[in-house]
């Protein structure tokens, strides 16, 4: 498992907190909506956690600004991991 996936997985668990009841491990294919059932306000907390972890290196909100709502709804953990790795490799 890549470091980024591990980091994002940890953040997701922290965001969901006590409601965490997922039996399956988080993979690149795990979707935020259908699999994790993340509430939209929890997704805001994840965005905030990304900001704390990576600072200006990873402009998650800027990335969201390029996406349509339907794309955001369909996001998988792998999409976020790929974006983070892309930002970090170009810096």
């Amino acid at each position, binding site marked *: 498992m890549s470091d980024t996936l591990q980091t994002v997985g940890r953040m997701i668990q922290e965001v969901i907190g006590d*409601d965490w009841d997922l039996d399956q491990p988080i993979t690149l294919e795990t979707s*935020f*909506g*259908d699999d*994790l*059932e*993340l*509430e*939209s*306000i929890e*997704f*805001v*907390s994840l*965005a*905030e956690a990304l900001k704390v972890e990576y600072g200006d290196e990873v402009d998650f*909100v*800027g990335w*969201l*600004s390029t996406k*349509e*709502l339907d794309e*955001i*709804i369909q996001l998988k953990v792998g999409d976020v991991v790929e974006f983070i790795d892309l930002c970090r490799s170009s810096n």
Partner: protein
Amino acid sequence: MAEVTVGGLRFHVQRLGPEVGVPVVFLHGLIMDNLSSWFFTAAPKVAAHQPVLLYDLRGHGKSERPTAGYSVEDMVGDLGGILDESLPPDQSVELVGNSFGGLLALAFALARPERVRGLCLVDGQVHDEAFGPEMVSSLGLEGRERDEMIARSFKAWLGRHSERKRNRLARNASELVHGTSLVQDLAHSAPPSTQELERLSCPVLALYGEHSDVRERGENLAARLPNAQLEIVEGCTHSLLWEQTAQLEQRVLSWVGRESGPGGKD
């Protein structure tokens, strides 16, 4: 979590975008809503150009939930306090409000006109004489009727069919409606007078869905405001933020980024 404390209450606040420019403050709707509905739609698009401030209304999202203090006046005070904590005292802002957020935006502009550069009402609720009784009849429901109302207003965008989430949101909504004085406080809030509305000088963009149940009252409101521009969005209901998201985002973006007219203050 980013927080601002106003009047002893903790508010969940998100600030996006650049430091410089006219700040845009987004206001969400009642009960089932929170700042995420703007965070994942228009807010990041606007934040690519202007500073953005979002917050959860008291009792909503991740803001604190007191048992009392939910009048329009209380919530106007919250917004004023959050602006005072977050921005320079002479900085005016653009307010963008969806549904109840539109009602709140207008109430704030009437109370603190020096703080407001312009308003965008997205199918804004209208605070007229009918508003209070409607609140009581729609939110004072019990049992199955209440659950059906909650199901109808369920507009979450992630995992729309999730049982866990639906139950949590319904429970959360029920706690807000039944565990606080929100319904009574809003029902007893005095609507603005016609004279007050006629004095509002800032530009207002009033967007209403063609089939929205609030449309007619929204049209009446826009007709009373001296500097309002009414636009009807074809084929939409009250939920136009979700029905025409991309179109709405573009309209909000061009509105909040418009040039000031003669005498306009940035």
